[in-house]
């Protein structure tokens, strides 16, 4: 089971700003990239203008392996928005690089999700203008 959408209502588009544009450009090309500080190598998410470790403003978008584990998750039994059909789960995935990403799972029931579950990134082309990075269980 994957996320069910009500096609009558568009999924809210991610607001794109200069600081996060690289992430969404990558997703559109089916690449999961995160900000990485050019000076100290720290992986940064969510994206921001400067590195909180070394204060450098020099960053680059670096590819992630897309592999990680479920760090936490919730299951919406009531939907807060008509685009999303409840029940559905939202996961917080901790990637190998150490950053965490809010996302959804595919091919799994909410009851089967657990903290520590190994997952890998997949890309869901929801509509012509929107691709989302999602995760599926590994193994």
């Amino acid at each position, binding site marked *: 089971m994957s996320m069910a959408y009500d096609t009558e209502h568009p999924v809210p588009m991610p607001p794109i700003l200069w600081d996060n544009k690289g992430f969404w450009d990558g997703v559109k090309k089916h690449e999961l990239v995160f900000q990485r500080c050019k000076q100290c190598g720290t992986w940064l998410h969510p994206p921001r203008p400067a590195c909180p470790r070394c204060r450098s403003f020099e960053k680059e978008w670096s590819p992630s392996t897309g592999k990680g584990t479920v760090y936490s998750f919730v299951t919406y039994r009531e939907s*807060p928005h008509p685009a999303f059909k409840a029940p559905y789960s939202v996961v917080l995935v901790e990637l190998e690089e150490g950053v965490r990403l809010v996302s959804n799972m595919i091919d799994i029931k909410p009851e089967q999700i657990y903290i520590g579950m190994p997952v890998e990134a997949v890309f869901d082309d929801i509509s012509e203008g929107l691709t989302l990075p999602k995760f599926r269980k590994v193994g």
Partner: protein
Amino acid sequence: MSVMRNIKNKAAIVGIGISSFSRDSQQTELRMVCETIKAALDDAGLTTEDIDGLVKQTDDASDEHAITSSMGMGNLTYFGECRWGAAPSAMVMRAAMGVATGTASYIVVYRAVNGSSKRRMIPSMRTSGQMSTSDLLQWTFHAPFGHMSEAGRVAMVVRRYMHEFGIDSNQFGWVPVVCREHGAQNPSGMYYKKPFTIEDYRKSEMVVEPLRRLDYYEEADAAAALVITTAERAKDLKQKAVYVLGAAQSMVPETEEQNSYYRRSISGLPEMSHVGKKIFSMAGVTPKDINCVQLDDSYGPFVPMQLEELGFCHRGEGVDFCNGGSRIRSGGELPLNTSGGSLGEGHLYGMNHVIEAVRQIRGISTAQVKNARLVLVASGAGSPASGLILGGK
């Protein structure tokens, strides 16, 4: 020139006003604010001409000038705002700083919401046109995945807390049960004579797992105001003065507006820990000295976490501390939210918690703690936080 070391004992709350809680006030927030300010002034034995400072919550619907114009106040020399759920204790801190430095003499702190009737909406931060850059940078990674409710964002942290400390969601029920017990004794609250049992809690439906309907607040219409002046002036006023003994705000790194997901650990409330250390040190007391607490119960599961972070018990023991309710009930070793708080009185974004602390020290609570001399207030669990230790002499 001498430097003030801190604001301990420099300021006192001398007047309080609070409306009843309802689902539809049939009034503007401005009207409710003006009425509660009038009540707070009457309570203190002051008049509108005495007021020269106002402190408000950023999102509050009533701006300062609307209040001065409506109420015929004189010249203000001090006004400003505090943000988020952390506002209530922080507003008292700001007001205390204002009078302690002589910038103003009598400062009113106020808050009103038509949260239930939405007769006039609280400005929504949830439409992209109005959102700040910082909020947009969070929203961009939440909204497309359907992570769109405040309860959902809180639930993510609660799940991790349960995982790390081996907690079953049924165990969170005692905080809402006790808050409603206290609220059931409070005639001006939303839930007067409406307690519920632990069985009712366990039957309550899951809205966003692991949170049940009864784990978090319902919107309400209500308003409250309080008056602060110097400890010196307080001596000559009508009511028993309630002194600000400790006051602090905290914001730590890797913070988002609410519920930071990107810190090394997300299962605690580090801001609350900082607030606790600072207010206990300023007041020169320890958790054992506190007679009752008014904690942020917008989300019940954050209460055990606050008890841990503030030093009332060890990490991971907050749920056990609340288990069965005997310690946190009126009459227990650390009564919690004696007016009912957000879960049992109504949701006024934490302002009612400050008002109740004052009532306890004055001895006029509907769930009065015997000889309440020191009361701790915490505002803003799961976000930038603030807190107070208030005391009588």
